[in-house]
């Protein structure tokens, strides 16, 4: 078979090889670089998006946390206030109840004392009458003479009072 010489430049081969190189350039661009670069770009965008979303979520979580913390601290303060108010109220109520009880006790005591005094007076009076009647009976028996009660009442009373004072 015919061969070309070992070291030579064949014009048409030269031209064809230039064209081949550019065809290869197009093919490699079309079938390797274009699809791969598209995928790489897509992946880059995806990664960017994910990072952005993560950052947003983080910010949101932070703000929520802040809010919860605020709520919690305000709730704590409120609870403390409520407790202290309740304590104060209970104290005042207890004091009032105590005072009321004291008042009641005092009034009951006073009334009881008054009752006792009255009863005593009554009893003394009754005793006085009894003693007066008895004295009269005794005296009339002694003097054999009826002493008119009305006439001698004053006398008897004086006597009894003296007895009372003496006793």
């Amino acid at each position, binding site marked *: *078979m*015919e*061969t*070309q*010489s*070992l*070291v*030579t*430049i*064949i*014009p*048409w*081969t*030269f*031209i*064809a*090889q*230039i064209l*081949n*190189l550019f*065809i*290869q*350039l197009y*093919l*490699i*661009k079309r*079938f*390797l*670089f274009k*699809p*791969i*670069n*598209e*995928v*790489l770009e*897509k*992946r880059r965008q*995806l990664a960017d998006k994910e990072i952005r979303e993560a950052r947003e979520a983080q910010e949101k979580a932070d703000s929520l946390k802040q809010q919860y913390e605020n709520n919690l601290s305000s709730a704590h303060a409120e609870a403390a206030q409520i407790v202290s108010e309740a304590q104060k109220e209970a104290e005042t109520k207890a004091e009032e109840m105590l005072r009321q009880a004291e008042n009641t006790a005092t009034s009951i005591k006073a009334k009881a004392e008054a009752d006792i005094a009255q009863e005593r007076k009554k009893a003394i009076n009754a005793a006085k009458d009894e003693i007066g009647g008895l004295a009269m009976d005794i005296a009339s028996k002694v003097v054999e003479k009826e002493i008119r009660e009305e006439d001698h009442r004053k006398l008897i009373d004086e006597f009894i009072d003296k007895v009372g004072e003496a006793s």
Partner: protein
Amino acid sequence: MNLEVNGARIFARIHTGIPVLGDFLISETLVVSWLVMLIITGLCIFLTKNLKVENISKRQAIAEMLVEAANNLVRNNTGGNKFDKLIPFVSALFATSIISNLISLVGLRSPTADLSTEAAWAVVVFIMITGTKIKASGVGGYLKGFTTPIPVMTPFNILSELATPVSMACRHFGNILSGIVINGLIYESLALASAALFGMFSSFLAKIPILDVGIPAILSFYFDWFTGVMQAFIFTMLTIMYIANAAEE
């Protein structure tokens, strides 16, 4: 020993009748070139099948790695993203060169063992270098660049400018051709050696080149693999460097 190293075979000759260009030769160079292009394109299509954004396949990982490697090579050597448009060209050049060089391993004749191929690439690169220079400093600036540092240097500057594509083409071609020549020599000499060695025992064994089994494979590791990859890399690196330098002037 009689070793003959021939140029590429010619399968068909199309008569064009154009005076300077001559006949269009469907030579081994062109046929194998088309095969190389088919291999590269097929590989690209295969690697970029079913592309996904997440949970990628091994194939896609390789394709992405290749693209990233090309991006990094150009960006690291030009220092920035200024020459990103150059990446597919550089990749095409490198891929064509390396596959052309290595296709000799399957017994085909490398398209790069024909000076026409390297000359074509070198001329394209030369035009790109010149274009970049003119773009960077204008036509006047480009022409004025030849008279630096002193006007006497002009012929030498023109020579050195023209030497760029010639040296690039001849470096690549020479390395591949020398690989072919040396491989031919090794095969022939080992056949002779085994004929002499085993001819002592029987005339039948002398006809089988036993020493040609294995030993040339080791040498081929340097002359085909190493040289092939190295020359493709050098050609590509020089292209990047020259164009990057051209833009700086």
